[in-house]
């Protein structure tokens, strides 16, 4: 009996020990699994962080930078109806993350690739979770809805294996896909919505050379089209001046400019003069031609003997130099009921330098059907004391008698000797214009030119807005063009209170080795007034101020290699600029808002405002250069679309174990 008891006790003991042992072993294995799983998750988190950075970096790229490495950006910005689920290239991403130096270094610490590895990486945007701003925000009158702008969910998944334990980390984040340049406005160099009645813009006093004596002009450079390229004049920046009331045209007085230094418009004659050798043989040494252009986009004044470009009294001209300067002429399309006023009076003698020069026909253009104010006195330049001469006198002086009789001189004098007051600013678009590259601007390149650019009938606003503007704006009155709050504010992915939060803004977007470098790539919103300091734009985007003024206190420059554009919008406040250089699109369109320059600013981009402080402008002057990269053709719609992930870490995380 004792024996059996002993055996039984021993047996039970063995069973208990075995069970306990097994339990401990199981428990230990379980704990190892926990540790291994945790380690797998730590690796997955690091890989997820890196993955998001890779995708964010790809998203933050705009325009030329994009290489469509992991997905086709065109797929992302497909409009409603065409958009489908976007699957990023999982194999490429897995390969990149798994073989990246940071992850390899991390895995080495955890025991090397023998025990740990990135199994799979996935990123996708499900079409089921995508909504369109045009549906949510509703339609804006006169605007063509942009159905490419959308928001949805982007899903990330990382699968890591550690000692045969596999863990999956999944993150879903919101993504917004928006155009960071407001529709229509991006095509303008200069847009002033409201110029009150009685505003006199002709306050710039200039001397004989067209240089300002009192006041400073605002000079535009709308871009340059080149005869040797296929660039269209439509790619140049457009100007809109919204006079009020619309029935009273705004008259801008042009002033002459000297060859290189003046700020006036070389509108008088300015085709290059050609000497025809046959003509020279026939008529002797005076083989030169007189021509005229109302629009000064030509070179060739240097060395010329100029007749008759001298007034007898102070010349007040427009403070807005929409044609640029003689040294930097620019084509201009002006929308709005705007006339130009100038003295059509010029003669020009050139000394040809080579035998290839060509003698063209005499000018035979018909006098324009505009109101004129008769003959104005002129004088020969350099003549002391000044003698008043008629245009006919000039004609006789420069035209060989053998070319024609007195009728010719008279006809020429009548044609040239006019003071034009009521000529639409765009009249030159109907005549061949030659720039310094000898490009003739063919008006036929602008479809429905007259209907679009000439005020007339019930439309006093320069016709229907010219393409490409009217692809986005379909109204007749550009004064109704707005930045729609319903659209602009939801674009923002980060929101700051105001200037007091600027340190936070800097921490997020200006945190590189260059403390001035801005890497935005998205839209941010300040609820109240904000001061923008010196910035160097490495990645553009949009800064929107909901209420309050925007003060630009430091120079804003864009990386010339990146073609980045920063758009700065004051939704309900003024824009004050005390910087000397700004490469950005500045917009303050709401009623009552103003642009207030504090010093001469050299702006590259667009200035679109409700109204201007023209007195400050006259005191400061300035320059606006249109950036042609803003008006890319429809073949490249991905330019300036930004894909935005608002936050890196505050989104739902789902962990799956296997």
């Amino acid at each position, binding site marked *: 009996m004792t024996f059996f008891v002993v055996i039984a006790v021993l047996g039970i003991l063995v069973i208990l*020990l075995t069970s306990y042992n097994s339990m401990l072993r199981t428990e230990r294995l379980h704990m190892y699994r926990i540790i291994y799983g945790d380690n797998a998750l*730590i690796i997955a988190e690091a890989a997820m962080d890196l993955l998001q950075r890779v995708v964010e970096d790809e998203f933050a790229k705009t325009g030329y930078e994009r290489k469509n490495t992991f997905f086709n950006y065109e797929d992302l910005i497909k409009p409603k109806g065409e958009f489908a689920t976007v699957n990023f290239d999982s194999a490429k991403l897995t390969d990149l993350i798994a073989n990246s130096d*940071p992850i390899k270094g991390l895995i080495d610490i955890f025991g090397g690739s023998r025990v740990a590895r990135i199994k799979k990486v996935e990123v996708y945007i499900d079409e089921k979770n995508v909504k369109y701003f045009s549906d949510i925000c509703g339609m804006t009158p006169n605007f063509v809805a942009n159905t490419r702008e959308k928001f949805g969910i982007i899903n990330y998944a990382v699968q890591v294996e550690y000692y045969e334990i596999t863990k999956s980390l999944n993150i879903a984040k919101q993504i917004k896909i928006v155009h960071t340049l407001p529709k229509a406005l991006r095509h303008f160099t200069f847009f002033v919505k409201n110029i009150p009645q009685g505003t006199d813009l002709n306050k710039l006093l200039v001397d004989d050379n067209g240089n300002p004596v009192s006041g400073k002009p605002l000079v535009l450079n709308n871009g340059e089209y080149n005869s040797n390229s296929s660039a269209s004049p439509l790619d140049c920046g457009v100007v809109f001046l919204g006079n009020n009331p619309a029935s009273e045209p705004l008259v801008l007085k042009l002033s002459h400019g000297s060859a290189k230094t003046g700020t006036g418009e070389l509108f008088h004659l300015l085709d290059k003069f050609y000497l025809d050798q046959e003509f020279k043989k026939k008529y002797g040494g005076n083989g030169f031609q007189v021509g005229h252009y109302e629009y000064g986009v030509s070179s060739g004044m240097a060395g010329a003997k100029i007749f008759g470009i001298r007034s007898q009294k102070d010349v007040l001209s427009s403070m807005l130099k929409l044609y640029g300067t003689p040294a930097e002429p620019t084509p201009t399309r002006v929308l709005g009921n705007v006339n130009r006023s100038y003295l059509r009076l010029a003669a020009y003698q050139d000394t040809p330098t080579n035998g290839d020069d060509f003698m063209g026909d005499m000018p035979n253009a018909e006098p324009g059907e505009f109101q004129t104010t008769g003959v104005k006195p002129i004088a020969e330049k350099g003549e002391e004391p000044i003698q008043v001469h008629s245009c006919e006198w000039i004609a006789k002086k420069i035209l060989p008698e053998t070319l024609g009789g007195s009728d010719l001189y008279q006809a020429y004098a009548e044609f040239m000797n006019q003071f034009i007051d009521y000529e639409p600013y765009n009249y030159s678009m109907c005549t061949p214009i030659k720039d310094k590259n000898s490009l003739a601007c063919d008006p036929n390149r602008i479809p429905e030119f007259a209907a679009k650019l000439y005020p007339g009938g019930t439309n006093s606003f320069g016709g229907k807005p010219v393409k490409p503007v009217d692809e986005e704006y379909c109204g007749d009155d550009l004064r109704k063009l707005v930045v729609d709050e319903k659209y602009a504010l939801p674009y923002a992915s980060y929101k700051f209170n105001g200037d007091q939060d600027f340190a936070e803004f800097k921490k997020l977007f200006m945190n590189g080795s260059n403390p001035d470098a801005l890497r935005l790539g998205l839209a941010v919103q300040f609820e109240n007034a904000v001061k923008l300091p010196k910035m160097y734009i490495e990645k553009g985007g949009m800064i929107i101020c909901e209420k309050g003024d925007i003060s630009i206190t430091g120079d804003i420059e864009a990386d010339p290699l990146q073609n980045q554009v920063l758009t700065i919008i004051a939704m309900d406040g003024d824009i004050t600029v005390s910087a000397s250089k700004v490469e950005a699109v500045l917009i303050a369109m709401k009623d009552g808002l103003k642009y207030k320059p504090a010093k001469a600013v050299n702006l590259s981009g667009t200035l679109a405002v409700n109204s201007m402080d023209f007195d400050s402008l006259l005191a400061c002057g300035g320059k606006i250069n249109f950036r042609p990269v803003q008006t890319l053709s429809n073949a490249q719609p991905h330019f300036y679309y930004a894909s935005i992930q608002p936050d890196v870490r505050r989104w739902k995380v789902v962990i799956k174990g296997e």
Partner: protein
Amino acid sequence: MNNNKKSPVRGSRAFTLLEILAAIAILSVIAINLLYSLSEQHRGTTDIVNKVIAANFAKDVIDYMKSLPYSDVDNSFNGVETFVSSEKFKDLPPLREPFKREIEIIEFKNKPLVAGSDQKINYKLIKVNVSFDKNINSKVNLIATLMVEKFSK
């Protein structure tokens, strides 16, 4: 008088002492092995429990580091920390004996994301060793993570 004595049952026999001793010996050997195994398992369990605790001490630091701005995570954190005091991690659960924590921040600047890539990256590897033996190099629980600053071209 009946002197009938029970005689052993015919055909049955008791275990011999030898058999009993052999059985006890076998069971003892098994029991000893089991006990030894039990002791090992117990030690292993203690070890793994300590490892879990060590991992948690390591993760505390990693989570804390990841909550800091990138620029604040620097090599001033490098060094060995014991249960005695730790000003740097005063907000974290205190270490207890015998745990020691060794932290190493390794910074990489402007490194290619992958070999040969023109995409450059700044990042930091945060290594945390937590030991729970006298020697910092034994019974180590090593954990690391990664902080990525930005990409540049």
